[in-house]
Every structure is written in structure tokens, then in C-alpha cells.
């Protein structure tokens, strides 16, 4: 295993409904790969893509050295993925905003400990925007 592999947790992150698009009418989806992360440049082109599923590589520990949990993933996504200034479309009052359901491996994150769930390699995290139309 390379040093990089031991440091990072590979994850699948999916936005069933792009959190950034709800004011607009485009499906804007986040796409991220390791190179883009380390490249750390660009802006909107990183955010605007037509894929909804992303393989991300999250640091194994958060800034305090604790094992990375979902709460850290949310902050990390905000800081590393979203160049859109409207963070409130994704995070409100320090948590994922109402109307977005967080699923960890096809289960409501409330069954898994919410923000405190410690992420494992290969975990799949889905951010589902609730629908109201009919």
C-alpha cells in the first residue's frame, strides 16, 4: 500500500439532487477525483459536471487527529468541493440543511450515529434532497 492509500479513505459520494441547483434549473453535480483535489485549482469547472456520483478520497483523520466522521465529510465537501458561495443550500446551522436526507450505505444516517459515524473505506454516502411535487 502506498502512503497515500493509508492516509486517505476512498468513498463514494452521491447527490441525488444537486444541492447547488435548487435555485436554478440546471442539474449541477459535483465531481471530484484525487488529482483534482491535489490540483486544487479551477473553480466552477470542478463543481459543474453532469455526473451525480463521485469517488472522493477523504483524509483518514480530521484536523484534530480524530478518525474522519460524516460531520467532517460534510465540512470537507463544503471546503474542498463547493466554490458556490451559497453554502446555506447544503449546510445550515452547522448541519446538513433540513430537506436533505443523508444516507450511509443505504440507511438513514440517524441509524448510524449521524455526524459521528466514522467513515470506512468504500462507504457510500448519498445526499438526498426531498421532493414535494405531485
Amino acid at each position, binding site marked *: 500500500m502506498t502512503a497515500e492509500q493509508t492516509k486517505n479513505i476512498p468513498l463514494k459520494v452521491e447527490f441525488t439532487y444537486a444541492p447547488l*441547483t435548487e435555485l436554478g434549473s440546471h442539474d449541477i453535480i459535483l465531481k471530484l477525483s484525487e488529482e483534482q483535489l491535489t490540483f486544487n485549482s479551477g473553480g466552477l469547472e470542478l463543481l459543474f459536471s453532469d455526473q451525480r456520483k463521485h469517488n472522493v478520497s477523504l483524509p483518514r483523520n480530521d484536523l484534530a487527529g480524530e478518525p474522519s466522521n460524516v460531520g467532517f465529510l460534510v465540512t470537507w465537501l463544503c471546503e474542498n468541493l463547493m466554490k458556490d458561495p*451559497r453554502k446555506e443550500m447544503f449546510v445550515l446551522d452547522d448541519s446538513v440543511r433540513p430537506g436533505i436526507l443523508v444516507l450511509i450505505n*443505504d440507511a438513514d444516517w440517524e441509524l448510524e450515529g449521524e455526524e459521528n459515524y466514522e467513515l470506512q473505506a468504500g462507504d457510500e454516502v448519498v445526499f438526498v434532497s426531498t421532493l414535494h411535487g405531485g
Partner: protein
Amino acid sequence: MDMFTTTDTHLTFLRTQIASTESQLRTLKAQLAQAELSAQTARQLHEAYQGGFPAEWIEETLGALDDSSERDIARKLRQDGGFEGAPTPAPAAVAVPVLDAGGAKARAGRWPLADEEYKRYGRQMIMPEIGLHGQLRLKNAKVLVVGLGGLGCPAAAYLAGAGVGTLGLMDGDTVEVSNLHRQIAHKVRTVGGMKVDSAVEFLQAYVKLQTFASSSPSDLVCSLNPNVKYAPYRSHLSPDKAVAIFERYDLVLDCTDHPTSRYLISDACVLAGKPLVSASALKTEGQLLVLNNPPRAPGDASSGPCYRCIFPKPPPADAIQSCGEGGILGPVVGVMGVLQALEAIRLLTAKPPAPPPMTDWMDLSMDSTPPVTPEVKPTMLMFSAYNTPQFRSVRLRSRRTDCAACSYQATVTQHSLTTGSTDYIAFCGSTTPLDPLPPESRISARDFARLPTDGSNILIDVRDETQYSICALRGSTNIPWNGNAEAWVQDAVKRGVMSGYEDGRERFVVCRLGNDSQLVVRAVREWLGSAVRVREIEGGFRAWREGVDRSWPKY
């Protein structure tokens, strides 16, 4: 402190006792319901067999017949069967002539369903999942469909088709042409009429044929299922009436399109003790939830979650998109409505769980172990038409112990609904109203049309590319607005529409309805300052159609 500890202990003790007693009461009620169901089914089956197949059932069947108008047949059966008058060798043998002697009239009372119903429902009745029992349960069931749009139309159609006994239909809206691509019960002729009336006409030959001018008696044969009893409610659901209406039904379907109604329907289902099948759809996606199932008393953790357990707080009003704004594909919402009907049929025809052993329910002492109820595994089904896989079922949490509607601490009560102290509109909030731009930043569609078209002005169309390709004004530049001011301005600069603004040329911004264009003008002011001459066309292309070009497509 000690006093508080004692009080807390006492409270906990009382809560436990109440829960335990309620649990026992529920067990008894479940047993009563089970016994009633068995009795009813047995009665119906015995009626079905009054022709005399199993000898031991004749007695009970005769009892039932005595109450009916068919006393003569009863007597005949009795005599033939050896219960009255001359003895007869075998009950099975005697019954046959009676079948024939009874004729059509006797036959009508002999079977639990009418002749036409066997033909109509036969294809579903021959499956073990439904059977005669399931069909009878459907026939006895009362289902309320709230909302007769893209979800409610197919849901109601399949429930009516399946033979649900009573179908409540509620909607306060009228039919529009833009509904027809997905709301399959409505048609061109019913545009402008109440959706409820349109749906009843589609499902049943409508009793008031004059509702729609061109209705004719031939509609009687066009209807889907006249056997069903339809109960129309020509208004939107109101909090003060919700619980009283829901109490008349066995099951509720939420086919509405807004968070306010979704929270209200869920709350009323909890208060009325009814299971809820809830679905929603937008664009190419749908979601399906079965909530408050089984419906148990508030605080009982063995019941399924309610809408508030899953979504305790509504999303910000600005984040909510309607089908009119976001778009909707007919079959997508259709799939979700059909799935609602399917879940409803599954719930209504489900075989009740076996009653717990006698010792359990006879023992009413407080320390008896409560009967084991099967674990509830709530799920949400997600449908995404353009992704693989299209369907995904995810596990949801169970009831929330601090839920505002279904916990011990519930603050939503029948009283709070009736008095209006549970305010759904305030709870869900309203969209932030646009702070209108000053008049010098706006221009009416008519005035814009009078401007010279010699290229001295720049027209920026901020609708998305899909809408732009439906219809656009020649010479306009399409720079879609997606809510991100900085990104839009960067894009506009890159596309050249902001360069050289010192040349005196003016920029005009247009969108579909005149909201986004105001946000764009504000974004330009914020990022490029007031040197740029920019105005927005008031009311967007809707105003353009009304004031300038009547042929402009109205989508």
C-alpha cells in the same frame, strides 16, 4: 433536588404504566378486530356456500338467510337439508336442486360478490396474495386520496379498478391544460372544471352529468368502475377538518405537492390513527414512503415513523421547487402514483398477524411482558428514471422519541389543529419576497418592443439552455442564471456581453417570469458597479406574450 428526582421517577413510572396498559388495550383491540374479521369472513364464506357444499356450514348460512328477504329459499334449504320436515340422505346432494330453484335472485345472495365482480376482479383474485378474502377486504375498505394530480389520478384509477369499496377524492384545484400530460383522469373537456368532478367522471359514470357541458349518457359506459362508492371533497384539506375526515377512512394517500399539506396529512394520520402512503415526484425522480404503519398510539415505539420523524424540519421555502418550475415527466409521477396504489392494496389485503396466546392477553397485571410485535422496518423507495439502478430502497429510522406529532411529547394535537395553533404555513415558511428593483432598473415588455433593433442594445436571456431552445428572441444571448451571482457575472464577462459598457449601449435582461432577471440585475450591480447600464424586462416572457406577441409559446 431529591424532590425532583422523586417526581421524575414518578413520571417515568406513570409513563411506563400508561404505555403498558395501552399496549394491553391495543392487544385486546387487535384481537377484537381479528375476531370481527374472522366472523365477517366466515359469514361471507358461509353465504357463498349456502348451496350446501360443506354440511356443517348450512346451519349458520341458514341463520344469515333468515334475516334476508329470501325466507322461502331458507325454508326450502332447511327442508331439503333435513333440518325441517322430511329427512334427506346427504346435505351435499340436496343442495344442488336448490341452486337451480333459486334462480338469478337466489344466486345474487348466495355469493359474497356479484357475478360481474367475479369477472371484473377474477384476474387478481386468483392470486394467493389477494384471493376471495383479499377482494372482500378491498370491498370493505375506505381509502382517501388527497390530491388529484399526477400522483392522485393513477393512484385513484388503480384503487378504483381493484375494487376498493369507498374512495374519497379530495382536491380544491381546477383542471388546466398543462395538467393533461400526466394527470390521466382529466381530459380536454374537463379543463376548467373541478379536478374532483373530472376524476369522479373518469372513475364512475358521474351522477351529475351536466357538470361538463358535453357530457352525454354514453359516459355511463365509459367509466372505469361504477361499483365503487366515490366521496368527493371539492376543497383543499384544512387543519380543522382533517382529523374528522380521516377518521372515516382506513388508509390515506398523500398525493399533494407541497410541504404544508404533507406535514398536515401526516399529523392528521397520526391523530386519526391511520396508515399513510406518501409519494412525491419532481423532474425525473420520485420518492415513496409508508408512514405511521402500523398506526399505534403516540409514544409507542413499535409503530412506524411519521413524516415529522423523518423530516422534523421543513426545508427552507426558497429551496422548494414545484413541478411548474422544475418540470415533471408524466410517467415518472405516474410510476409513483401506481406504486402508492400498490402499497395501499398490500396494506389493505395484508393478513392480520396471528393473535398472541391467550395467557398473554388475559393477564392484565402491570408486570406482564407485552406481546411481541413484529419489528417495523421503515424504508423509502427512491426512483430515478435516468439513473442505474432506477429503483433503490433505503432503510429509515423508526419513530423519534421527541417527535412533535407521534411521541409522548407531541405538541401537535387535535386541539392544536382545530384552533389553528399548529400553523403549517408559518412552520414551512414563505419564500423571501423579492425586494423590487427601482423603476429606472426596469422596463415593460411593451416599451422594450419599441426600442430600435439595430444592435444598439444587448438582450441577455437568462433562462436555462433547454428553455432557450424552445423559443428565443433573435439576437439575444443566452447566459443561464443558476443562482450563483459571482459565477453568472464571470460567465457574462467571458461571453463578452459586459465588455465595452462605456460605449453607452444598454443591457436588457429577460427570463421566463421576471424573477431571475431581477436577481441578475442585482448581481451585475454588485459585481460590476453602477457604471453598467442594465435593466430587466418586467414580467419576463409571460409579459412579452401578453403585451407584445400573442403567438409567443406559453409553456
